[in-house]
Structure formats: structure tokens, C-alpha cells
């Protein structure tokens, strides 16, 4: 059955995948599936709208504020619509010792927006250490690591995405 939020097909996919996820947890602990369920929704819709979070909460039999509390705690969940590509740049100590501050400045100039902001095309953020310190500097685009970056490699990567 469809709803204003999901088409019938989307609802079918969501329900099927959610029941697979729920099988990983004790039957009386449905709400344990909150993170994977929110991720499932975000993968389907691109972000977590208030209606989406309400839907997840209902499926897991908890109040909607539980879904909102979790969604806003974790930085990989988007409670506002992000740009088409999410770019997370590590500027932590190991990466800064290998050029991360330059990297961030270079990206701000190249993509035309400041870190911590979004436009239609890009969300550019400074992020926590990405466990790529041996291959610094690094960043993730849409949850995929890119490491050992130079200006040339950044150009090649981002020109492809443009």
C-alpha cells in the first residue's frame, strides 16, 4: 500500500529490507534497528525528512522523537537535504601534518563554498579522523575514501563528479 511519503513499490522495498534487519535483533528489541533503519531510509530518499523519521519510528514502535534524537546525534545522518555529493574532509592532526588545511582551502575555492555549508551540488564538511592517517591527506565523497591526495588527484576526482 502506498502513502503520500512512499510509493507502493518503495513501501514494499522498505518493508522487505526492514524485516531482514529486524531478524538481527531479539524480537522484543525492535528499536535496536534504529541506525540501520534510518540508513535504509536515507539510502532510499537521500535524507531524513520529518515524515521519514516518523515512518521509521512507527515501524520500530517507538515515539518519533526517538528517531529524531538518533538522527541528529550521528553526523552521517542528514536531517536537512544535503547537496548531491557529500564531501567530508579530514583536518585532524595526522592529516594536517600532511597538507589537510591546504586541501580544505583548495576545495573551498574549487567547489565555491565554505566548509560547513551546502548548495544544490555539494555539501562540504570537516569531519572526524577517517582512519587514513598513513595515507593522508584524505577525504570521503559519498562515504567512499580517497587518500594520498594531491592537487592533481583532487582535480581528477572532482572534475569527474562535476
Amino acid at each position, binding site marked *: 500500500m502506498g502513502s503520500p511519503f512512499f510509493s507502493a513499490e518503495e513501501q514494499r522495498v522498505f518493508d522487505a529490507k526492514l524485516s531482514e534487519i529486524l531478524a538481527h535483533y531479539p524480537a522484543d528489541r525492535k528499536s535496536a534497528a534504529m541506525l540501520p533503519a534510518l540508513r535504509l531510509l536515507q539510502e532510499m530518499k537521500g535524507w531524513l525528512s520529518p515524515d521519514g523519521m516518523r515512518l521509521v519510528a512507527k515501524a520500530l514502535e517507538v515515539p518519533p522523537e526517538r528517531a529524531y534524537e538518533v538522527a541528529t546525534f550521528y553526523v552521517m545522518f542528514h536531517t536537512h537535504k544535503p547537496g548531491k555529493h557529500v564531501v567530508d574532509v579530514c583536518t585532524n592532526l595526522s592529516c*594536517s601534518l600532511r597538507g589537510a588545511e591546504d586541501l580544505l582551502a583548495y576545495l573551498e575555492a574549487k567547489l565555491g563554498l565554505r566548509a560547513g555549508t551546502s548548495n544544490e551540488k555539494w555539501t562540504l564538511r570537516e*569531519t*572526524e579522523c577517517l582512519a587514513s592517517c598513513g595515507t*593522508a591527506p584524505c577525504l570521503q565523497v559519498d*562515504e567512499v575514501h580517497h587518500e594520498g591526495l594531491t592537487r592533481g588527484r583532487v582535480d581528477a576526482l572532482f572534475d569527474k563528479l562535476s
Partner: protein
Amino acid sequence: MLPAAEKVITRNWGKPDSWTLEAYRANGGYRSLEKALGMTPQAVTDEVKKSNLRGRGGAGFPTGMKWSFVPKDSPKPKYLAVNADESEPGTFKDRYILENDPHMLLEGVTIAAFALGVRTAYVYARGEFKFQAERLQRAVEEAYQAGILGPTVLGKPFGLDVFVVRGAGAYICGEETGMLESLEGKKGWPRLKPPFPAVVGLFGSPTVVNNVETIASVPTIIERGAAWYAGLGTEKSGGTRLICLSGSVNRPGVFEITLQTTVRQLIEDERYGQGMPAGRKVKAVIPGGSSAPVLAAHEIDVELEFEALKKIDNMAGSGGVIVMDDTTCMVRSLWRVIRFYAEESCGQCTPCREGAPWAARLLRKLEEGRGEPEDLEILLHVAHSIAPFPPIGLGNTICALGDSVALPIHSFVARFREEFEAHISQHRCPFGDRPWGHYGALRA
């Protein structure tokens, strides 16, 4: 010359398709599981205890002892939760275990589960490890198909399910009880201890939480025996250790080293760091992830071993060794570290929630040349209010994140006070627009 380390964890890295079940078995994999299933669970735990294996996630707690804290007569199910939320700045070893040898981890999980009477294990991978979690998930699926996981393990009357769960971007979920909260579908607020997870853990049940490298060490301990493994290490810590070397050094990377290796040898040895960049000297080294106190150049002849570092009020931590050369600004380095903890403080305890951002603002003020003479004392006072030091572990917060804010501040200022004062007296950063040392500029 420093003896080469036995390859325990890294022995399959670089072999063709090392992450597949076929390659793992061809290299001798899952024979330790067969051996363990022929032992009693208690005998497996005793072997791990005798091996002197200590936790590789940060705290260095003896693994066998942790296992023995699980109540034997609990009517509740028991859980194993493997911590693959590798997020401590400067640490990137578990990631390569997941990428290169996920079956070594899974074999360790099955042996540990057998020893502990666990029927369900979760591996919690940080959200950013999408690729690594998917690779582990494929290994899990291979293991189910091969009868290594499922209702029976290698045909024995013992069943095990393993589920891979991804976090969603929160450093605090690497703290073991924060991780359990997250596994329960909540925000990752650490729990007050006791009760410890071994008694009240996941879903209120007895739970063992172990790091990836710790669990991946178990198959070798069973295969080669506790005495052999213990003999690789020092009196109180067995085995080898993965060390993550980063920062201003010629060859950063993950290296399997003996516990007798010093920080200086790690940096200089041809097999490891291959020395400092030409003309540069060591100024400072963080030996155990950015939460650990910093060492000055004259302190780096210390072994990268739990007791040796503890003796000098430091910690082996997660094995993240970060090197700063003599052209690196210590104020900017510390600011960078503290900004991270301010961002990642979960907000539960006031000293950390308020103190970390306050310290970050003070450090920014100093680095930008706006510092006033009293700022340094205020900074130290803020650090002291979160966690006095030394020794390590006096924090006024529920979890160790508070200590992770305080320890870098105490230790950086104690060793490099004149540099902090120079920022105040000169009203600028003495390193100008090149604060990050030899490799600090983005290459073309």
C-alpha cells in the same frame, strides 16, 4: 639491531585475494577453530589468559581476565560485541584487518564465542567504514555458506550468528558502553560503570566487548599455544602489536612490531618509518592516539608497550603514533586535537561538554595571536577541572573522553610552555603561515 617481529596479524596481508575464504583456508585458516572446538570452553579461555593478550583498543585490559568476568550461570543470553569503531585520531590498523583478512577476525569471533558460550555476536564498524563493513559482510556470508557460521559450527553442536552493524559517525561510539547504546539503537551516550558490560551489557545481558585486533589475535594463540604467544612479548603483555605511524616521518603506515620496539626505533628503522625528512628533527610524538599525552624529543626511547608507557604517565592506547617535526607549531597542533574532542563530546557530562569547547576557543585565541598572559592558566584550569593529571584516569566524567581533552592540554603545555608564551608575547604564531612542518603543504 632490532629483531624483526613475528607476523601474527599481518601474515596474510598482500597475498592474492587474502580476504576470501578460499585464500584464508589455503593459508591455513580455520584450523585453529577446529582445534578449539576439540577443547573445552574453559581450556580456550585459560589459553587466552596464559597468552598475556591485552586489549588493543585503547585500555590494554587483559583479554582472558575480561572473558572470565562473564557470569557462567546467567540465565540470559550472552553476547560478543566486536569494536570496529576505529576512530581515535592517528589510528588506522583495524581497518586494514577488515580489508585484508576479515576471516582472521571471524575465526577469532567463532573461537571467542565458543569459549564464552555466546550464540550471537555483533561487529560494530564505524559508519565511515562502508567498504570495510561490506567486505566483512561478504566474509560472513562465505562463512555461513561453508558451515562455519549458522546453526552448527563446522558440524559441532554449537551455533553462532554474526551480524555486521554500521555506526553513523560518532567518535564516542568507540567507547565500549557508547557502542552498546548505539547497538541498541540509541545515541551513543556512555554508561556509568559498574556494572561492567561483562555483567550487564548489550540488551541487559552479559557482554564481552573486544577490539578487532584483539579478537584477530585469538586464532594464532590457539594454533601456536599460549606460551609461544606470551614469549613474543614482555612479562605482562604477550604477542606483537600493530602500530600506526603518521605525521612528519618518511614512511607512514601500519607496522607489526615487537613490544620491545621504542618510539625512536619505530621512526628510524628502515623496516618502519625510515627516519625524519631531510634536515628535520623530532619535536614531539604522541604515542597512543591523540588522547595520549605528548612526548618531547628526549622522551622517545620508551618501548611501545603498555607497562613501559604507563610507567612514564603515558599510555599505549590504540597504537596511533603521530610524529611532529621541529618546524611544527605546538599550539596549532593542540588546538587541532582539542577541536576534535570538542566536536565529539557527546554532551552528557558538563566538564567535558563545556570544558572542551572552552579550551578550543582559548587555543584558537592563542594561535591567532590574541592571547593574554592569563589565558594559559585558564587553559590549564579548564583541563584540570575535566581531569587532573598525573596520573591518567582521574577524570570527572563518565567516560574517558574527558581525559582525552585534559591529557593533551596538560602534556603539551608542560613540555612546550615557552612556545605557548611566545604566541602571547609576540601576538602571533611564530611559525606564520607554515605551522604544519615539513610535509604540511598540499602537494601539486
